[in-house]
């Protein structure tokens, strides 16, 4: 739209320029354009109208934008007004001056003195001609009188003589009816006798003479040149007298001499102006004509010039206005773009502004602005990317901290909690997540005291380490047990001063494991030391009995036998106990092989079924899940494990006489989220009294037993076997009474569990 306006504007301007040029040249010159002046005027008017429409449209657009308070309209309006004024004012000034100048100068041509001078010139010319005429008339009359006295046949000769004497150029004798009788004088080559007309003769007759000034000074034809012509009648007697008296001259004396007779002949004399005079007369008349022409046309001329000037002004003004508005538009467009862009940048929008071609400063401005916004946006993107990275890193760190089993707490210098991770809350058994800002001493007094002491020790030490490490034992809560923590602390500069970070972990299980290991070592050594003398003791007792029994009295022999039997029995019991110890201490590394757990359990349980019939004790019920994957296990150790668990369960079941004792052995597959088998679970349940609370947590430690005859090594051995198989064991009391022991085998031979099993370092089968 804008470019269309611009192009048509330029076209109209070019057209207007051409038309104006033609108009001006037609107004000022006599070229052929002069004929087309009205057409050119109309064309220029039409162009002016077109420009007017342009200007009106542009102004209307500007006003509309201004009213709508569109961005940049004010600047554009100011520019447009300035440009238009710059065009219009000088134009108007020049116009006014020109019009004034024009009318003044045109008027100045028509000076009264010039007018009068020309008139005077003409008068002088005429006076000269009239003087010549009067002179010629007198001469003609005199010659006519002379001729009247000459016989008609001699008249032509006499005329020639008289003409030469009078210095007249042409003279001719003309008959009464106007026919040429004879001519004499200086005549041009193609001379045609110029005969007086009938009216001329009539006038010559009635007025005695005809005196004329004839011709046109501007005529190119010599015959039409200015001349004086006199026609007089040649008197014959009375006629001459009549002529004289009528002429009023001095010839009264001769009038009576001549007979009165009708004139039969006329004398015509023609005197042309001398060439120099004729040329001057022509120049004079030409000048007079031109002057008159101009004088008559001056109003018109003024109007033409004024109209041309006015039209020029109108065109120039409209062009200036339209040009001003368009120029303002094109000048302000880059500025507006930049201004809008600045606004957008201030609002955080880094869009590009429209760039304008051309390499002036304003257009450069748009280019540099775009470069700037591009750099800004790149910088912002980089900053955003950086902060996102930082955010991610922090989130990752937080996630790691949150999922860390170890507890991490950060304290400020007033021992108030700054942050604590999930692990810390879990280990301390406190809801630390919502406790930020509270003193640690309030939350966990015992822990706080120990940490405080640790930090104090560190500062007191002669060579303070960067961090301290110590074990913190916490007293058992009611119903619970003592917890051991391994804590490490160090200084951590916080934003608002020094702070402390404490990392701790629950090492109760580790300690328990260490204890079990230590027990194993003790048991192995003890077993070795104890077992060695047992066989000699047994053999010595049997030998004593064998050697001394026959020699002793019946009573003494009975005593000996009893004593020896007691020794042998006790030694045997001790041996068994030592074996148990050894078993516990030296469970050999399992020889892993694929084991079908269900089949294995059925085989083992069948022994108990047989036993059951004999002893009438608790029945073992099997609930086996079908199609279980095989597990990697040592058959001997597994047998021991199942045996120990079943024995324990049966004993426990029989310990509650109120109910029918019952033992259940169940297997099931543990499935992962994707449906694959992850592990195999084996559960042994009984309906006995369940584990006592203090036993439950230490059931796997040796010599913890509730049974009167137990060694306390059943479950520790089970635990050991389970550990060797990389399985897990859990103890739980059932809600309805009774206990459940769950063993989860994670090392599977086939099925989906293979992958899971392979992930752990397992010896090859």
């Amino acid at each position, binding site marked *: 739209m804008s470019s269309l306006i611009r192009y048509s504007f330029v076209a109209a301007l070019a057209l207007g320029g051409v038309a104006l040029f033609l108009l001006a040249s037609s107004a000022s010159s*006599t070229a052929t354009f*002069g*004929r087309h*002046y*009205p057409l050119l*005027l109309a064309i220029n*008017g039409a162009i*002016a*109208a077109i420009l*007017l429409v342009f200007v*009106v449209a542009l102004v209307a657009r500007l006003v509309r934008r201004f009213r709508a308070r569109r961005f940049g309209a004010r600047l554009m309006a100011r520019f447009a007004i300035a440009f238009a004024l710059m065009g219009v004012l000088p134009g108007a000034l020049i116009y006014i001056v020109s019009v004034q100048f024009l009318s003044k100068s045109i008027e100045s041509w028509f000076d009264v003195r010039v007018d009068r001078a020309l008139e005077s010139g*003409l008068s002088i*010319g*005429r006076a000269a*001609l009239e003087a010549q005429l009067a002179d010629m008339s007198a001469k003609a009359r005199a010659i006519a009188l002379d001729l009247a006295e000459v016989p008609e046949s001699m008249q032509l000769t006499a005329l020639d003589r008289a003409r030469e004497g009078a210095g007249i150029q042409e003279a001719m004798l003309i008959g009464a009816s106007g026919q040429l009788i004879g001519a004499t004088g200086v005549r041009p080559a193609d001379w045609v006798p110029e005969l007086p007309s009938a009216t001329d003769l009539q006038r010559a007759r009635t007025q005695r003479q005809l005196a004329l*000034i*004839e*011709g*046109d*000074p*501007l*005529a190119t*034809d010599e015959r*039409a040149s*200015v001349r004086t012509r006199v026609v007089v009648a040649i008197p014959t007697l009375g006629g001459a007298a009549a002529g004289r008296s009528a002429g009023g001259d001095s010839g009264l004396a001769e009038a009576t001499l001549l007979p009165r007779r009708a004139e039969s002949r006329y004398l015509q004399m023609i005197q042309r102006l001398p060439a120099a005079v004729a040329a001057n*007369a022509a120049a*004079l*008349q030409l000048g*007079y*004509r031109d*002057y*008159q*022409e*101009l*004088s*008559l*046309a001056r*109003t*018109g*001329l003024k*109007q*033409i010039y004024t*109209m041309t000037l006015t039209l020029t002004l*109108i065109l120039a003004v409209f062009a200036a206005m339209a040009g001003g508005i368009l120029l303002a538009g094109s000048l302000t467009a880059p500025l507006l773009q930049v201004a809008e862009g600045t606004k957008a940048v201030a609002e955080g929008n880094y869009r590009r502004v429209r760039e304008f071609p051309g390499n002036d400063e304003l257009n450069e401005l748009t280019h540099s602005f775009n470069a700037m916004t591009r750099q800004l946006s790149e910088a912002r993107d980089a900053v955003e990317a950086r902060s996102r990275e930082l955010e991610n890193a922090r989130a990752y760190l937080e996630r790691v901290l949150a999922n860390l089993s170890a507890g991490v707490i950060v304290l400020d210098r007033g021992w108030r909690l700054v942050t604590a991770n999930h692990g810390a809350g879990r280990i301390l058994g406190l809801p630390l997540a919502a406790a930020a800002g509270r003193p640690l001493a309030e939350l966990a007094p015992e822990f706080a005291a120990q940490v405080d002491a640790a930090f104090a020790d560190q500062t007191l030490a002669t060579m303070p380490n960067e961090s301290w490490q110590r074990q913190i034992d916490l007293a058992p809560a009611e119903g619970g047990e003592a917890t051991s923590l391994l804590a490490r602390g160090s200084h951590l500069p916080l934003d608002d001063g020094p702070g402390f970070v404490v990392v701790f972990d629950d090492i109760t299980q580790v300690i328990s494991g260490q204890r079990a290991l230590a027990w194993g070592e003790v048991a192995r050594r003890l077993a070795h030391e104890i077992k060695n003398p047992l066989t000699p003791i047994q053999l010595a007792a049997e030998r004593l009995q064998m050697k001394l029994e026959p020699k002793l009295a019946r009573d003494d022999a009975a005593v000996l036998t009893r004593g020896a039997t007691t020794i042998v029995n006790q030694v045997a019991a001790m041996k068994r106990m030592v074996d148990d110890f050894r078993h516990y201490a030296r469970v050999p590394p399992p020889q892993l092989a694929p084991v079908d757990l269900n089949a294995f359990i059925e085989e083992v349980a069948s022994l108990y079924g047989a036993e059951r019939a004999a002893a009438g004790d608790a029945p073992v019920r099997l609930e086996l899940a079908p199609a279980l994957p095989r597990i990697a296990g040592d058959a001997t150790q597994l047998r021991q494990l199942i045996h120990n668990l079943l024995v324990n369960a049966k004993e426990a079941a029989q310990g509650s006489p109120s109910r029918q004792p019952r033992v259940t052995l169940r297997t099931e597959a543990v499935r992962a989220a994707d449906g694959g088998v992850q592990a195999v679970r084996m559960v042994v349940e009984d309906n006995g009294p369940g584990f006592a609370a203090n036993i439950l947590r230490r059931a796997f430690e040796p010599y913890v037993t509730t049974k009167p005859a137990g060694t306390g090594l059943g479950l520790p051995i089970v635990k050991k076997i389970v550990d060797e198989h990389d399985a897990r064991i859990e103890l739980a009391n059932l809600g309805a009474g009774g206990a459940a022991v769950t063993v989860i085998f994670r090392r599977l031979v086939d099925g989906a569990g293979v992958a899971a099993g392979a992930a752990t370092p397992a010896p090859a089968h």
Partner: protein
Amino acid sequence: MLRAAVLLLDGAAPDASPIRRLFRAAVLAAGIWLVSPPAAAERIEVVSAELRTAAEGDGIELDASFDFDLPWTLEDAVNGGVPLYFVIEFELYRARWYWFDERRAGATLTYRLSYSPLTRQYRLSRGTLALPFETLGAALASLRRVSRWTVFERNALVPGSRHAAQLRMRLDSTQLPRPFQMGAVTGRDWTLASEWKNVPVGPELVR
């Protein structure tokens, strides 16, 4: 139309500012200037026109008389020495029912009316022939009559056809000095012309 334009412009916004009113006036003035018709021209009337066979030869002659008065502007011009050229034009057509009329002949006669202030003579020239007159009236009287003007040869007439002839007289404004030619522009009237007048072409001419 102008009034409508005025109403349209005025009705557009009654609460117009002075600048707008001025602008509107300018538009109006430009409109009036552009649409104003030229002043009515002085007329020449063809009083009579008659064709007749020439006494000798095969020519057809025209007698015609015109009636007009010289406007004072032109009279001033003549008395100022400016020559005036009067053109009498004659056209002969043959009517054709199937097509445009065929132009068979045409003739133009140019008179030059001039005044010499030095000799105080009016001259009416027709070609090389020039007649002097003492007064403008006499010269004009001579100009108003045309007689025995051979306009075409007889063979221009097609026997059996209908013919039409027309005649007009006008002041040749192209021969006027340039400022006089722009009467329409300057508002002065220098134009002088007659309508085309039909001249009866009698059947007796076609022999």
